[in-house]
């Protein structure tokens, strides 16, 4: 035997250089982007936020590790995707939820939402939302039990509520009672900054936008899904507000309450479960927006972000199929084709 040049060269197909992007780096950036919202959650919900976020992160990573081991696959927890799922799931939980329920949510999210399909990349639905919806259906009471909250500038005399703004609005509309909120500038600003009842991570649109700006700057999300999603909701809300002001809330109120910002910025933009092309993003975002608004305005639930995104996740393969780019040299409107065809 004649061992050649030692150490041996690496031989691989081209290209031989890489942009340096890794799945782990993307996931780490998503975690970083969620830190402002986490800080807001800790500020408003204190110990409960810490308890649920740590339970979900540890739970999701543990479930992922167990699943990979059980399936005798490479242990893939180092890509941090389970951490992202855990944080997102915690962001979608009410602050008083018992820890054990959160852990059940983790098991459903990572186990049924992701690993049964083969792990990262193969899951058709956003795992965190699968976990959240499973919990909503299994534990409807615990999932809608909110802490008492001082309402900024209320219309009625009560200054403390145990409902989310959207929940209070829905109750008022269905029972024919007057609107609970003034929705004046001060209220909306309070809501925007996070002073409202709701799930851990969804209360502060400001913090969520800050994190999303980081993701946009890093290039991991594009503007297409969030803008079309929020834009569609705003457009529909404006239309309904104009025609039926008695049974609707202002456009701005739609944008700063509920899970819209969290969903549009962090969950609808999930790479695995959203379409791959920019045009697909536009379709996906608009679809999410329509569904969310329809559920909010006319549905039985006060909030519809989770269901909308999951429903559109199911449409993703179809959207991908119909929004493929035009292949170079095939048809198109290039003027040269006229002279050559």
């Amino acid at each position, binding site marked *: *035997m*004649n*061992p*050649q040049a030692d150490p*041996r*060269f*690496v*031989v*691989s*197909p081209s290209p031989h250089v890489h942009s340096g992007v890794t799945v782990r780096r993307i996931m780490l950036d998503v975690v970083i982007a969620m830190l402002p919202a986490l800080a807001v959650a800790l500020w408003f919900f204190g110990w409960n936020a810490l308890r649920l976020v740590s339970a979900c992160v540890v739970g999701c990573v543990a479930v992922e590790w167990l699943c990979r081991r059980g399936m005798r696959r490479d242990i893939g927890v180092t890509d941090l995707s389970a951490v992202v799922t855990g944080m997102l799931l915690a962001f979608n939980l009410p602050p008083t939820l018992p820890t054990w329920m959160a852990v059940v949510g983790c098991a459903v999210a990572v186990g049924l939402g992701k690993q049964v399909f083969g792990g990262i990349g193969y899951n058709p639905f956003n795992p965190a939302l699968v976990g959240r919806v499973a919990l909503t259906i299994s534990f409807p009471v615990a999932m809608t039990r909110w802490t008492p909250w001082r309402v900024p500038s209320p219309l009625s005399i009560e200054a403390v509520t145990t409902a989310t703004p959207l929940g209070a609005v829905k109750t008022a509309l269905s029972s024919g009672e007057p609107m609970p909120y003034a929705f004046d500038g001060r209220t909306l600003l309070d809501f925007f900054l996070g002073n409202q009842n709701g799930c851990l991570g969804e209360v502060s649109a400001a913090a969520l936008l800050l994190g999303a700006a980081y993701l946009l700057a890093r290039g991991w999300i594009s503007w297409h899904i969030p803008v079309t999603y929020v834009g569609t909701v705003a457009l529909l809300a404006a239309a309904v507000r104009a025609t039926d002001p008695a049974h609707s809330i202002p456009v701005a109120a739609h944008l700063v309450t509920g899970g819209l910002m969290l969903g549009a910025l962090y969950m609808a933009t999930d790479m695995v479960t959203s379409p791959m092309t920019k045009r697909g993003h536009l379709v996906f975002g608009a679809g999410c927006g329509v569904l969310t608004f329809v559920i909010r305005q006319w549905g039985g639930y006060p909030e519809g972000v989770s269901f909308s995104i999951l429903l559109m996740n199911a449409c993703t393969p179809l959207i991908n199929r119909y929004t493929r780019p035009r292949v170079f040299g095939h048809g198109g409107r290039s003027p040269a084709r006229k002279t050559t065809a």
Partner: protein
Amino acid sequence: MVIGGAGLVCGAALAFAARFLAVHEDPRIEKVLDILPGANCGGCAYAGCADYARAIVVDNAPINLCAPGGQEVIDRLAAFLGVASQTRERNVAIVLCGGDDEHAGRKFDYNGIADCAAAHAVAGGDKQCVFGCLGYGTCARVCPVGAIEITPQRIARVHPDVCIGCGACVDACPRHLIRLVPAERRIHVLCSSKDKGPRVKEVCTVGCIGCTRCTRLAENEAIRMDGALAVVDYSKDLESEAVIEKCPTRCIVKR
């Protein structure tokens, strides 16, 4: 009520359809299919067992094509169809290369798709010996019964007791190292290198160096030279284990 009614109507319609639109087939096809082992390996050159069963009944295809079934299936088919039983030698696959990573060098570190055909296409494969087994397991992946193992020293090895002789691996190997041979032939020259002796010695310690010693020891010319490579003639009996001991590079083995 409405849904239940609709379900009832649809069910009835389906039942009708099943009864009246059923394709009438020769009932023997199903019986033959029962006799066949159901491995769907494609070794018979038909598209699965059902296709072969149809071919036997409708087109009078030979009944000795099923490798996994062996003699037992042939006998049962003959009895069922009332034709004379035929014989079939059981064939098994053998990888004619013994140069694993302990004995044969690699010329570079390959980084790409873990597949032999893909690796073979990148700078001609990473093995120093251009004839040797690359060990990326393409044959193992196409094997319907999992009879091929990629050893920790990265070489493909067929387990003859598991192999059904379907030949899928023979076509899959980009270096054409796998042959189907009668199961009772146990002595093999585990080398396919057409290189001359000195070159073989450079790249592998268990390659055939073309010394021709085995061809003189083997009874009735059961080993012949093909250029600088000793090749077993599997149509002839080869019992003498002297060839194994006398091979200077130990590339003749009994398996």
